[in-house]
């Protein structure tokens, strides 16, 4: 059984320091990490491979530096990694990105299950997982918090919803996106790291996956970011509320109500 895990390399925003003057996060020198949700996808892929046999492959579309993330995945126990890297891929929005990943999955061939993390912490859209399923016209299950059972032909998953959960069954091939409740990701071992440093990671380009050039990169993306700006600066005045507990509570709730927060 072939399992593919899609990963993304993102900036580690929570390691940022705060500029004391602007009170905003300093972004220089922030290192790149595997998108945290993808660690759960990798862990699940490794556990499923150990249970069912077969192969688990990690793929990543990104700059050359993203190869480090694929090596880290191999250090964890992934069988092999493939980097999708080319100038033509740059600037892709989620439509184009999921198209490229879908083409790569088709190229790998005979894939039964694709596992993605719920969302990436830089874009936060959560669109790529279902997007891949749509491009491939495969079944999908998102917000998967547990895999109840799995065989060579089907999978039964528990999907999280705001108001509870449901259990559904899908025949392969299928795409699932996972949430943090699903497992506890392992950390790489020293031996794994040493092995991964020597591994060969192939790079695939548009021709390798038969991608239609008009559907990738900036040109292939239906959405375009036209402007970015910083959020308004933090004010300097603290509004003070004092008095009896009841008075404080009333005043506070009033503040929340006039801001349409409750």
């Amino acid at each position, binding site marked *: 059984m072939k399992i593919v895990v899609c990963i993304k390399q993102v900036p580690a925003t929570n390691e940022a320091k705060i500029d004391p003057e602007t009170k905003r996060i300093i972004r220089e020198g922030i290192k790149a990490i595997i998108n*945290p949700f993808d*660690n759960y996808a990798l862990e699940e892929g490794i556990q499923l491979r150990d249970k069912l046999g077969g192969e688990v492959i990690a793929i990543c579309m990104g700059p050359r530096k993203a190869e*480090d993330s694929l090596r880290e995945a191999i250090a964890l126990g992934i069988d092999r990694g493939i980097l999708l890297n080319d100038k033509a891929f740059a600037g892709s929005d989620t439509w184009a990105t999921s198209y490229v990943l879908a083409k790569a999955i088709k190229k790998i061939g005979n894939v039964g299950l694709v596992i993605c993390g719920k969302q990436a912490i830089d874009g936060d859209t959560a669109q790529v997982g279902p997007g891949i399923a749509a491009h491939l016209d495969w079944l999908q299950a998102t917000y998967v918090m547990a895999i109840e059972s799995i065989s060579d032909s089907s999978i039964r998953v528990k999907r999280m919803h705001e108001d509870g959960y449901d259990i559904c069954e899908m025949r392969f091939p299928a795409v699932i996106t996972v949430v943090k409740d699903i497992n*506890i990701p392992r*950390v*790489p071992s*020293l*031996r794994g*790291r040493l092995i991964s440093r020597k591994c060969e990671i192939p790079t695939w380009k548009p021709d390798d996956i038969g991608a239609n050039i008009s559907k990738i990169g900036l040109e292939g993306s239906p959405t375009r970011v036209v402007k970015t700006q910083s959020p308004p600066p933090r004010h300097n005045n603290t509004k003070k509320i004092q008095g009896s507990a009841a008075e404080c509570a009333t005043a506070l709730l009033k503040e929340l109500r006039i801001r349409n927060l409750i």
Partner: protein
Amino acid sequence: MIQHILNRMYHIEVLPPKQDSETLEDNLEKFQNRYLRILENGYCACITDNTMGLLSFQGTELIEELSLPVISEQLIIHLNTFHRKDDLDNILRVCKLKRIKYLLIITGDGSERIPKLRPLDINNTDTESVTSVELLKYINWKYPDTFVLGVAFNPYEPEEHEFEKLKRKIKAGAAFIITQPLIGRNRFIDRLLKKHPEIPVIVEAWMSKKLHLLSEAVGYEIPQNTAYDPISNLKILHRLYPQCGFYLSLLGFKNQFELIRDTWI
């Protein structure tokens, strides 16, 4: 542990290479050299566990992969609560196998990447999260009479809170204490020594000239150019705390290693 103090054995901290190191092979060689040098000079090596939540390699896997010698009296391994259950059990198994005797049990620093023990992983139903106290209990339950377990004492945390925590740690089986870095006399340490004369205390001496790096630890801002002589501070601490052992953090292996030969008189 009391023998370490009587024999004037310094405890020297050696940090494992970080997992994302680009020059891993070089870092491993440097680690190995430092470790061996500490042993050769009769000191005790102290290997940390993901300090500040920065994912690094474990002491036990470094010892195995690099085939490092283990001398029971000359090694302390730090162990914190940020591990998967299977990794924790494996670390303890290897420690027992390799006859590693001293473990420093701390709650530790996490990060989003590093997994945390859950209460049910260590058969604990009393608390909502796992602290060093619960980990101590688990280790003593699973490996009775195998290890000598130490704990941390932080004189920069609220006094009553910290002494109360220490009481629980001792009840759970703590056999020695290592403090946070001391700069000169510290009245909480004085109180600690008076309250618990039966437990060996090892005070930490900050061996880096950059005192301002301690600002976060001590809870107040130390100006960047504050003059500080680590060797002087160490000698002062020896005078003030003759009954204590010494833990040297950020020791300069190039320039300071030879200097500490003569400081413990």
